[in-house]
């Protein structure tokens, strides 16, 4: 199965590299957004299977964008990403509606799938 994915990040260099990586590993990147309002609009239009959302979107907070995405009628799961470590934000990650967190350095389709499976596993039990 090929999941569709939306990437929200304000660093274009990272975006290109991540897109290449994820598509090589079998994910369909259906859209990219560099700010919160684009992210909300695209998520609404494209219904991606997963949204990768950078915590530091310039002056915007990824945590706030995650809240906005979650207010959607049929929200797609969100995975927070950052060059920071999980422990830097653990409190805010735990409080956010996102599925989980992936450090950018450890980004891979396998890691994304693992997070999604874990989350859906939780949901089923």
């Amino acid at each position, binding site marked *: 199965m090929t999941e569709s994915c939306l990437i929200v990040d304000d660093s274009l260099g990272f975006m*290109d590299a*991540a897109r290449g990586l994820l598509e*090589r590993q079998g994910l369909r990147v259906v859209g990219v957004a560099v700010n919160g309002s684009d992210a909300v609009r695209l998520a609404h239009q494209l219904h991606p299977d997963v949204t990768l959302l950078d915590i*530091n979107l310039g002056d915007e907070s990824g945590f706030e964008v995650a809240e906005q995405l979650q207010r959607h009628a049929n929200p797609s799961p969100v995975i927070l990403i950052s*060059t*920071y470590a999980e*422990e830097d934000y653990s409190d*805010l990650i735990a409080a956010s509606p996102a599925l989980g967190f992936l450090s950018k*350095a450890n*980004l891979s389709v396998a890691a994304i799938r693992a997070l999604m499976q874990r989350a859906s596993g939780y949901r089923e039990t």
Partner: protein
Amino acid sequence: MTGRWPSARLASAWRALARWADAERGDGPPASRVRRWIHATIASTVLIVAINSAVDLLDNHAPVRSLSVLYLLAVVTVAVLWGMIFAILVSLVSVLSFSYLYVPPRGKFDITEPANWYSLLVFLITAIVVSELAARSQRTARASARLAEEQGALRRVATLVAQETSREELDALISEEVGQLLSADLAMMRHYADDGSLRLMGQWARSTRLIASGCPAAVDRVTELIAQTGKLARFENEMLGQRGGDGATFSAVGAPIVVEGRLWGAMIVASRAHDLPANTGARLDDFTALVAIAIANAKNRADLAASRERVVVAADETRRRIERDLHDGAQQQLVALTFELQATQESLPSGIPQVRADLSRVTQGLVSTLEELREIARGIHPAILVQGGLAPALRMLAQRCPLPVQLELEVDRQSRLAEPIEVATYYVVAEALTNAAKHADASLVKVTGDARDGMLRVRVQDDGCGGASPARGSGLVGIVDRVEALGGKLVLRSPPGAGTSVELALPIATQA
């Protein structure tokens, strides 16, 4: 038996007499000068009559000439209490009455008798010398009393300045000290502001009715004159200002307050009960010189505090920018590079395992470089403070600490504190936790904090060995500067064997 020696009785009688004589001495208003003359005349008469009676009693027991010495008592007393002129008068009256009443031939003053002239000479010299000495000692006593009073007032003002009393309170208290010290009815401190307006900085009045009835015109004229000349100014008997219905007149004296070479304002006293003494201006001037120093000190302190805070804020701003540049630039690029390396690795044809292994090692190196960079960035400025504020940042510190940390925060999650406050608190807790983990041999650290009544209070307490000294190269020393720049206090308590506590108190202004 009363238990009191005659000398003690004499001393207390003398003190009473001195008080009676000395009421309103010197430069008092005319009414009190008349009173003094009356007192002196009564006292001289009583003394001479009393001595005459004593001479009467002793007349037959001693050579009459020797009894003239008794009159020196009157001369000395009057000389000490009322001064030279009265003493000379008393000398004349004494010699005349003694010679007329007791020296044969009685009933007549023998102008050719040299003994009469000798007595008069001795009496006059005594009168002059004693009154001069007494006047000197009284001047010294008065000067030192005045000095003590003034020093007392200044010491109180200095203490208030040192206690960092608020400016409004300080100005009101300075006005009160000056008003009381100079026995005025009204004292006020006025500031010539940079925009040309006149500001009332502090005011004190003997009765509140005085303030309600409006500013006396004399005060305004003095204020105006000082603004023009920058010198002492004085106005006598001016009518009360616009709303002065009771027709009272005022005198006012004002002295300029010059702070760092510029006319800052004026200290003005006004009085209606009597004219202000001639030396009021000079005394006011003595005082305002010190008031000016107090103002300059307070201003310098405020400037220094503001500048320290600006330095801290600017440094934080820079650190934050560096951290952000690291994050947005180098770190993102390194991540992108790792991805590209991975792609290259995956696209390599099989059969060159050495190249694959090399590439893998480079990728690993990049990842650990990234981690190192992240550590550095965190040390420069903690990103979580920007995003989440103090509570999540402190929880992050607690989680990262190798010791178990019990964290109890009563800080409103929704309202953020000012950034410098959050940053300072973060550094204090980070340093305290690091020290506890490294040096304290502790098993538990408690971090408690609350923000109420305009103060953020945070306490880090461990159960370790104590005995920590801030002088021993603790990172807390640098943090103290940061805390003090924000008007806060940092206290380290570390009694040997009883754990270490670090207490932080910071004044806060909450941000919406």
